[in-house]
């Protein structure tokens, strides 16, 4: 059964299962997926579902409908598609197409191998024993014994969203001995501060950059306000203060 997950700024608001032949999306309350926002037209879009296939249609909305960043009028939804309506995103997941796909990627299954020669548990052996594994060749006539969660099979996964897409976040140090230095936030996680004193990390996520306090009794200060233990999204030209050092976050446009 195909599913739509409604998110705003990376926060999941609701999940919908496409059970009806026609599912409507719009600002007005009578829609199957109501989105209370002025950027959304009263009757914005509809999804027609026939068996395992779903078609998205823009109903002549004022601000349009995007699929994977491209404006569409009509679109045949594929597993992993992201539909954008205003600032809202609807992620389309269709789990029931595994039967037609050779690549059921991730249900864990057990191969029942021929009886193995038991090997005593060994101590202090850092070289985990290959001897305990049956030779690969013997597995050719093995049978698949158990399948996990047949319903949850999925088609070949869409490649992870390229994390480099969009402008790159950069930290510029504003005070202290390193003032003027720039620190591009290229990795998934960048550590700031002094270990043992005060440490925060900036995580690069598909939705943007997030700062989180890791250790130390004082919290990092974001735009003059101390953070709590939660992750906070940082925006262009936010000022961070950490261990007495001021720094500014900004986006450098992709070249």
């Amino acid at each position, binding site marked *: 059964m195909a599913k739509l*997950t409604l998110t705003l700024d990376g926060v999941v608001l609701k999940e919908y299962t496409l059970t009806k032949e026609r599912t409507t999306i719009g600002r007005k309350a009578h829609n199957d997926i109501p989105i209370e926002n002025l950027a959304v037209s009263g009757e914005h879009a509809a999804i027609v579902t026939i068996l395992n296939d779903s078609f998205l249609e823009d109903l002549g909305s004022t601000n349009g409908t995007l699929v994977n960043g491209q404006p569409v009028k009509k679109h045949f939804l594929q597993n992993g598609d992201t539909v954008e309506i205003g600032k809202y995103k609807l992620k389309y*997941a269709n789990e029931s197409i595994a039967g037609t796909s050779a690549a*059921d*990627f*991730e*249900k*864990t*299954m*057990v*191969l*029942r*191998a021929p009886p*193995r020669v*038991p*090997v005593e*548990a*060994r*101590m*202090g*052996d*850092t070289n*985990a*024993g*290959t001897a*305990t*594994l*049956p*030779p*690969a*060749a013997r*597995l050719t006539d093995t049978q*698949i*014994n*158990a*399948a*996990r*969660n*047949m*319903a*949850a099979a*999925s088609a070949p*996964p*869409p490649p*992870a969203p390229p994390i480099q897409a969009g402008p790159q976040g950069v930290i510029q140090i504003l005070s202290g001995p390193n003032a003027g230095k720039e620190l591009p936030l290229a*990795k*998934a*996680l*960048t*550590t700031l501060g002094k*270990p*043992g004193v005060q*440490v925060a*990390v900036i*995580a690069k*996520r*598909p939705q943007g950059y997030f700062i*989180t*306090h*890791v*250790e130390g009794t004082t919290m990092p200060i974001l735009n003059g306000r101390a953070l709590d233990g939660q992750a906070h999204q940082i925006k262009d030209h936010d000022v961070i203060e950490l261990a007495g050092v001021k720094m500014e976050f900004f986006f450098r446009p992709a070249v």
Partner: protein
Amino acid sequence: MNLVKALEISTATHTGMVRSHNEDACAADGEIGLAVLADGMGGYNAGEVASGIAVALITSEMRQAIARTSLHGLDQADGDLQAIRLLKGITAKANTSIYQSANSQPQYAGMGTTLVVTLFRDNRLSVAHIGDSRLYRLRDERLEQITRDHSLLQEQIDAGMISREAARHSQNKNLVTRALGIEADAEAEIHTYDARPGDLYLLCSDGLNDMVEDEDIELTLNAMGANLPLAANQLVQMANDNGGRDNVSVILVKVTRDFPAAETWLGKVLSWFK
């Protein structure tokens, strides 16, 4: 001996972004130095049942066994042997229990689970595993995979049929060659290692290592090792950000100081003051 002061433990588990329910199960008990993680498989909710049985049974049996026969009065070799015997006996018991449930109740037919269990004692660590749930260790800022998957893919790598690089994109990632509860007898692979202060251990289901590269796991543990709950949640979040196609579970165990077995009365007295 209570290991609460020597081990810091944090756990996180999540259904992921695609699956409808979480078939992973995990539990940890700092007092006896135990961490258990299982990734269940089987139709409907049978996967949850299998992993649930494994984790509940191993945790309670291990508590009882350790209360009965303290492992901590023994010298190192005897202690290792005893720990291995315990792990072996208890995983075999969990296997029997799942196997019998699967055979007696039709809705559970064919269910099974992977398993990774760590037992800490006397500056040592014994690990039992079956299937593709893993144990990693971060030591001196380097991440190392300690267990080796019981999977078709690992065997293909071992046999030189496929390169490590190609393995990342293989479609056989999901085939395990051993699991708990599938056959009447299942043998866990058990090894013992030194545990040092500063070590950070990661037990995880394949939902983590299939979605997050080892380099990013290492980066996270190094950046956030000072704050274990945060690190555990970050790992889960990264798996979900990358697609979250499977349930994802992690247990982090940090060794904060030495935990030698207190053998003599003097050692016992000293250990009170630590």
